[in-house]
């Protein structure tokens, strides 16, 4: 297959950056989007042009490393990560625009590579449980109902790729934060610190310069892990409850 690419090229974090045109020729229909870029890069290297820089790691849709906004949609067409987009999804001769994930809290480092460490700092502010170390407890020693376990698992599916913030017109990370708050908050191990967790993570999210939710639900539409936006509602409720406790002077 053959494609016309418009790719964002940016020398470093401070350079202005611009869209450059490239031709992708002889692309197998079953190549993944990243493999297509690998082929293009091999060609560029032969012509002594700096290859296009982009993030990737597992290439099987579970690590959350790959990013790329393809034709204005983070992770491109269909549900899933960029590495799971195959070129057969496009028509032969299509023009494809590739831009980095855009959000003020995700500064572009180079070309299509963005710095998503803001998410790490949000996790450090409460995206964990304080459990004693030691050997793993016996399975089923703490009974958890199937309904709760399923719900927590749906939230835990979040791979922290940042597509939600990249798709959001407000650059808001609320789907990511709500997934973490829900996943840990539903389970008995995470419950004791629920209030502190939601306060800490939301405050860190604000600190990092993510925007506010306007309930556009673009995040939910692009999320490769199908995290539902209803979790944002749940986080709002938990945050309000924890704030009320804090205001009246209860221990949170």
């Amino acid at each position: 297959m053959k494609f016309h690419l418009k790719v964002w090229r940016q020398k470093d974090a401070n350079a202005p950056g611009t869209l450059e045109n490239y031709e992708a020729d002889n692309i197998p229909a079953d190549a993944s989007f990243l493999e297509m870029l690998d082929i293009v890069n091999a060609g560029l290297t032969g012509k002594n042009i700096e290859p296009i820089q982009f993030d990737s790691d597992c290439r099987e849709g579970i690590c959350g490393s790959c990013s790329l906004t393809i034709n204005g949609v983070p992770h491109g067409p269909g549900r899933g990560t960029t590495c799971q987009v195959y070129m057969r999804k496009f028509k032969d001769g299509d023009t494809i625009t590739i831009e980095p994930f855009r959000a003020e809290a995700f500064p572009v480092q180079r070309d299509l590579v963005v710095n998503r460490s803001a998410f790490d700092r949000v996790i450090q502010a409460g995206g964990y449980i304080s459990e004693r170390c030691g050997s793993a407890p016996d399975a089923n020693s703490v009974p958890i109902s199937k309904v709760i376990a399923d719900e927590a698992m749906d939230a835990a599916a979040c791979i922290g790729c940042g597509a939600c913030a990249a798709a959001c017109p407000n650059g808001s990370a609320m789907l990511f934060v709500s997934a973490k708050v829900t996943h840990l908050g539903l389970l008995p191990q995470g419950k004791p610190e629920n209030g502190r967790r939601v306060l800490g993570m939301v405050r860190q999210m604000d600190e990092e310069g993510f925007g506010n939710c306007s309930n556009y639900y673009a995040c939910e539409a692009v999320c490769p892990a199908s995290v539902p936006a209803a979790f944002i509602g749940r986080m709002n409720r938990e945050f309000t409850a924890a704030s009320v406790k804090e205001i009246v002077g209860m221990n949170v």
Partner: protein
Amino acid sequence: MITSPSSSARSGPNPILLWMFSSIGKKTIVAATGILLVFFVFGHLLGNLTVFLGPDVLNAYAQKLHDLGPALWAIRVGLLGILVGHIYFTMLLWKENQRANPKKYIAADPIKTTVFSRTMRLSGLVVLAFVIFHLAHFTVRVVDPSYLVMRTQLNGHEVHNVYAMVVKGFSNAPVVAIYVIGLFLLTFHLSHGISSLFQTLGITNRRIRSNYELAGRAIAWLLFLGYVSIPISVLFFGLGKGFAQ
């Protein structure tokens, strides 16, 4: 242990301000003021619909409101405060959102966002302009000063003839056009706003969310039909013909 700036330490910033100016706090305030304004829009419609029950009912209703005296002013000031809060916190959120996403995609895609959600600020500001016009028109009555001298007899008392004012006001096609446009934009605003406020207040879950969206839109359009029925009935179907002075 998760260490968060908890107020139990009594040394951190004021927890009320901390909540109020957090992302979710600001959203909550916009949603809470929003729901109060929706209640007002409902109540106002119910009062207005008395126009279909004849001049005496509408005039008596208007007179009752006026007789509230200080309570009426308390409601008016309260509504103004709610409106100012709604707009002020929206503007704060908007400013932050602009800062959080300054570089838009060159190949822009709306990604399943609705036209209602994308135009909230625009529709809100048009509605604000419409509300100001509406107050100037029927409350302060500076658009047509002849409304000021419309009086009528009701149960032996001389009262302001609201019915005649409404009929005369809506006999004017450009005025009706302004009302229909203003109400249409209000419907746009509420089409996203009503379902959105449940999400923001956290009264939602996965199963119910799409129902909220349908119900929100249905309520918004019902309100639209209720409101426009009055100017349309006056202008096109001769409601109150002969009562206009």
